């Protein structure tokens, strides 16, 4: 086990893991952002201007 943690390159899967995690996060929050109601979005966006 130590050998695999320290020495082995694991290069085969690392790019896929990085891409997989990133894609999962992006897709999740893109869906979330698109699903946001317009009124709710407009309200949130105007909060700094709500003096």
């Amino acid at each position, binding site marked *: *086990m*130590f*050998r695999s*943690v*320290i*020495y*082995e*390159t*694991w*290069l085969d*899967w*690392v*790019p896929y*893991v*990085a*891409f*997989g*995690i*990133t894609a999962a*996060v*992006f897709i*999740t*929050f*893109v869906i*979330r*952002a*698109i*699903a*946001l109601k317009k009124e*709710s*979005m*407009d*309200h*949130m*966006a*105007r*909060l*700094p*201007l709500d*003096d």
Partner: protein
Amino acid sequence: MNTLSTQKQLITFDDKVVRQFMWASIIWGIVGMLVGVLIASQLNFHQLNVTPWLSFGRLRPLHTNAVIFAFVGNMMFAGIYYSTQRLCKARMASDLLSKIHFWGWQAIILSAAITLPLGFTRGQEYAELIWPINIAVALIWVVFAVNFFWTLAKRNEPSLYVALWFYIATIITVAMLYIDNHLSIPTSWTHSYTLFSGVQNALVQWWYGHNAVAFFLTTPILGIMYYFLPKAVERPVYSYRLSIVHFWSLVFIYIWAGPHHLLNTSLPKWLQMLGMFFSLMLWAPSWGGMLNGLLTLRGAWDKLRTDPVVKFFIAGVTFYGMSTFEGPLLSIRAVNALSHYSDWTIGHVHAGALGWNGMMAAGMFYWLTPRLYGTKLHSVPMANFHFWISIFGILLYVASMWVSGIMQGLMLNSTNAAGTALTYPNFIETLTAIRPMMGFRIIGGSMYLVGMGLMLYNLVVTARSGKAVNESREVNVIQRGSVDNMGVKTTFLGDPVTYFFGGLFLFMGWIFLPKGADITALFCALGFIFLAVKKFAASHHSWSQWYERLLENWLPFSLLTFIAVALGGLIQIIPTVMVNRAKNMEDRIQQVYTPLELTGRDIYVSEGCYNCHSQMIRTMLPDVLRYGDYSRMGESIYDHPFQWGSKRTGPDLAREGGKYPHSWHYNHMMDPRSTSVGSNMPTFSHLFTEKFDQKTLPKKIAAMVQLGVPYPPMTDVEIKEDAIKQGISIVETLKADKLVASPDTKIVALIAYLQKLGKYDTPEVEEKLKNAPGGPKLIPGPGNPDKQRPAESE
């Protein structure tokens, strides 16, 4: 859902603390940049290292800490205190905590400004401050966090605006990183040894170091951008949808990118690859954020011509885009082979610090001051002049560092066609080549500093023309219980979280479980994803509702943010920290330092030698040709702290031991130009008269033993005797070369340390390989200081 009652309340914001942080930021910023100009000049004119406490090695940490924690830190707090009160429609929860935060932070900065020039340091970049100050930083940060979250809890606005999300991420992540990276065992009031060593120390340090950039210099400023830019252009942010994607993808991905500071080193390759790939992925959220900022100006581009505030903001956001394009580019291993240890990195960080942080700070201060003092800006033309001199200053600085870095990188990495010899074997040759560029940097930095001075003058006159005002506003009081009502069960046991973390857990099983079980875990993860998609399709309304409620519940939101940032760090760090022990090494093991060598090492750290010299020969042919066999993981396993460095103004020292006689080091420290013509290294003549600290030596050895360094049992007297005995032996050797030194002086200890660098115990396996027929051949090549370098090493 109507969460507001009809009850109204008049609140007065605490703007005094905003003013205090703003002035502190400007003043400390000028101090930090002044030190920056001085150390840039010292690199060209070594004579400017006039005293030990004004030498480059001690002042460079002061410059970086002042700019990061004093200039940007105070600026960030000013912005956070101002915007949080407005976005929450509530005064800060506790005036006392605000005061403790402000004065405590200034006391910390002052302590740093005193201790760093005195040579009290932990020897890790941006984490140099000694342990009592570390504790003070942690405590003051907690005070800030309590005040901030308490204000969120008593807010009169149900929704948490995106700027607040960025502040939450900042507070949580900086606390986590700072505490982990500063875990130490004290040996005196001014000295400690970090808990981690060698590669694990490197990994934790750059997890912290990189994310100090991410979560101290970026996320809070993004929060400030999302609040102040819409205010300045009087229109909402371009796309609130994009800001959601920007926030979550940034906090999830940023935390994984730390290992890109350790590319081509002895860090395990899988970590290097993770660091590189996640850095590349950062392009997307960073540019999403930049475009969101720039496009907020839609329909109001004319303000760019007339309003200096908008000019500064837009330039700041543009520099954010440039820096976040350049960062991932430098994280590509092949590019990093050229750029790392060179001025290119210095140019990159200054594009971020001066361009992104500095311009955003200026924009915010020009916007804030008239409002905080109920008046108008004293001089718009002066602010415009500040803008232009800053822009030209930054461009001159960054461009000269690009040229310098690329030129020196190319020279250092250049070999003959066969790849058997270096084109420029003398390091000084490459340093001489970049000197003009280092000169341009001084001019660029000075221009920026002049701009800062003008801003201080302009804002002081503005403030004096008005009167400090605290804004009052009538707000609708929120119905308590209508928000912040999401329980643990709803937060963590709802479908979205269960499916997300269940899938992630199984996915990790695929990575870490033994063969057979890993495939099972992968199939289970895929099955889980399928179920999640099915469930989402069936009840996406409840998923949406869960998320919308999350935006009105600061505690669950903060906890989920913490989990998002903690995950990446844990997955990268835990395996390395767990297994980085001598008994698990299958390669070379570093020899333990003698008491005198350990003392010498502490002096090396204290003088800040790591600011210019690395101790890491990368797995690259030019590095191996120049410095010797590439560094192995086990060769720094007892180094608390690791000294791999991040910049080579001088050559790498990983295999310095035995390369030169004691007399060479003696003369080199007395007058570097006597041994290396053209060197810009300061003289270290004070080391010849100052005695090393014998009193705390037993405590230091005891701390090392506690950290797992295998010292033999020794009494206090034996430890001191051993140090003096080795000192006498060095002095005797020096005497033969007609050089005089006392065995208890710092120079003797430093020589002992330098002569130990690169000494390791060779495991039987390697010995056998060397002697076996067909085993690695030795190359006694020209310019190769390590004659034992095996041919296969590159």
